[in-house]
């Protein structure tokens, strides 16, 4: 029952400080989530006017949504675009990451900067710069132009995440595999890919959700057929219906469940890896490592702490 000397005492200023920190943290989370919760709540609100107080619960907007042919067509179109773009971006981004990290070509820093630059380009700039080129080569805007635009910003993402992973991976594993007589393809399949697939999966999922709701680039590159965000954008600007709230809520729910499933898969695979690769825990501590190797951090962090009890 004696208070240990090294434990901080509960002085007034300390309590006030803790309260302030707690209040700040809470309000930031509230600020980040309130808008999302508001949209979800209003998708069930029985009124065409978006204001308080709530008029009552209804599923009308969801029914309208599923009866809206144009909206459904737009969703299907967006799915097609996202899948194609992610496929291209995954192959290209993965290949580039391998080239960069494993061969370290001359001027790889410059290549790295150029390759990742679309990630920090505003969508509008990417959109209009691609548009002028596409117009110049007389390519019609539509599916292919949207896919090009999306692949242009998803590829750097895949590249970035996979390259991060490859940099901390041990190249001697691959050399060992070759020494044991495995060919390059076998080595790639059994050593390189398993070591990076979590990063690849995370990048592909992030790319997929980004593509599904991209508007800034798509707006310029879409032809006559709108993707979901472009269609919704039109609805929002000219005559809005609460149906849009329902669409947003459904899509957000879908993205987040996808994220949760991906997180679970990554976590399970990282846990399995842990058994064989425990020596490999890097203290890099970057967030992306967490995203890709969720299971490493918390437990190890605890193990490393000297037990004070």
């Amino acid at each position, binding site marked *: 029952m004696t208070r240990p000397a090294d434990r901080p005492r509960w002085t007034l200023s300390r309590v006030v400080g803790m309260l302030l920190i707690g209040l700040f943290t809470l309000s930031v989370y509230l600020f980040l989530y309130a808008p999302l919760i508001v949209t979800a709540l209003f998708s069930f609100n029985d009124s065409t006017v978006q204001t308080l107080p709530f008029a009552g619960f209804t599923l009308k907007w969801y029914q309208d949504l599923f009866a809206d042919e144009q909206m459904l067509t737009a969703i299907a179109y967006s799915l097609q675009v996202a899948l194609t773009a992610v496929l291209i971006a995954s192959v290209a981004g993965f290949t580039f990451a391998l080239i960069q990290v494993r061969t370290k070509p001359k001027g790889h820093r410059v290549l790295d900067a150029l*390759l990742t630059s679309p990630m920090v380009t505003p969508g509008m700039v990417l959109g209009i710069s691609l548009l002028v080129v596409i117009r110049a080569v007389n390519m019609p805007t539509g599916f292919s132009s949207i896919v090009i635009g999306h692949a242009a910003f998803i590829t750097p993402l895949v590249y970035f995440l996979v390259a991060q992973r490859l940099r901390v991976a041990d190249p001697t594993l691959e050399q060992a595999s070759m020494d044991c007589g495995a060919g390059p393809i076998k080595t790639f399949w059994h050593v390189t890919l398993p070591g990076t697939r979590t990063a690849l999966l995370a990048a592909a999922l992030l790319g997929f959700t980004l593509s599904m709701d991209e508007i800034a680039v798509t707006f310029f590159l879409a032809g006559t057929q709108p993707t979901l965000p472009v269609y919704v954008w039109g609805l929002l600007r000219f005559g809005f219906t609460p149906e849009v709230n329902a669409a947003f809520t459904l899509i957000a729910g879908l993205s987040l469940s996808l994220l949760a499933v991906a997180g679970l898969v990554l976590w399970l695979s990282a846990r399995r890896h842990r058994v064989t690769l425990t020596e490999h825990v890097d203290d890099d501590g970057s967030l992306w490592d967490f995203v890709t190797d969720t299971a490493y951090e918390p437990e190890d962090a605890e193990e490393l702490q000297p037990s004070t009890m």
Partner: protein
Amino acid sequence: MATIDLTSDGLDTSSVVADKPARRRYVAVIPMIVWIVILVALPNIYLLVYSFWKSSLGTVDHTFTLENYKTLLGSDVFKLLFRRTLTIALVSSLLATAIAYAMAYIVVRRFGRYKLLAALLILIPLWVSYLMRIFAWKIILGDNGILKGIAKTLGLGESFTSAFLYSQNSVILTLTYVAIPYAFLSVYTTLDRIPSYLLEASADCGASAWTTFRKVVWPLSRPGAAIGFGIAFVLTFGDYVTPAMVGGLSGTMLGSLVLQYFGIANNWPMGAAVGITIILTGLIVLAVVSLFSRLEAPLD
């Protein structure tokens, strides 16, 4: 297709065997260079070239002229929009970086083993539709919005709500909201890398919490804050979705101008010129930021 197969095959072998001939390495780089040229270099260069052409009666006149830039620099509307866009982007990225920094500091130092969960919770909004997040602010701030409803029940005057309705403030608020997760990601990764023994050592040497922050934590995390600010600035400076959604007339930004030139006005060269000014401003800010992002001494 054949060339791509060939090079990717070359990549696999050179990836595993260190002593391949140097020539193979150069071959492996070719697909990357092709990609960069087609999707990064060419579009930007062509946009620059485009901005030196002129639109006459809907067609583009392919002779070099500085007229677009002269028109822009002589236009009061452009100057006003430029100043406003700069202010909005600076204020909202500064706000976002400050909030993200404080939040990242609290998460890293106070959340213990739950810090990754806490960090992930801040990043999750990035997975939720961009349009939805902005539109949600329209529901909150807009005509007959929630804010107005709350203000009415509390008996606050019109002046309170009109400050946040279709104005510059509503754009700043929304862009700050959008930028926080990006800034947080950048700050968090640098703060999390600072080993706690450095802080303990500083405290053992008798430094107060504030001195430790000023002399140890801030110098080591400044690069993260600077890069976070840079990314936030570039992304907010070129935005046109937010001003269109919550800005109204007084919240119009340069991005809205580009949209107009590429759309209704059908004057692509002029739009390209505005686009180039946006790119240049972003590059200048990034260059300034990179001066601040250098560490005084390496961490290890």
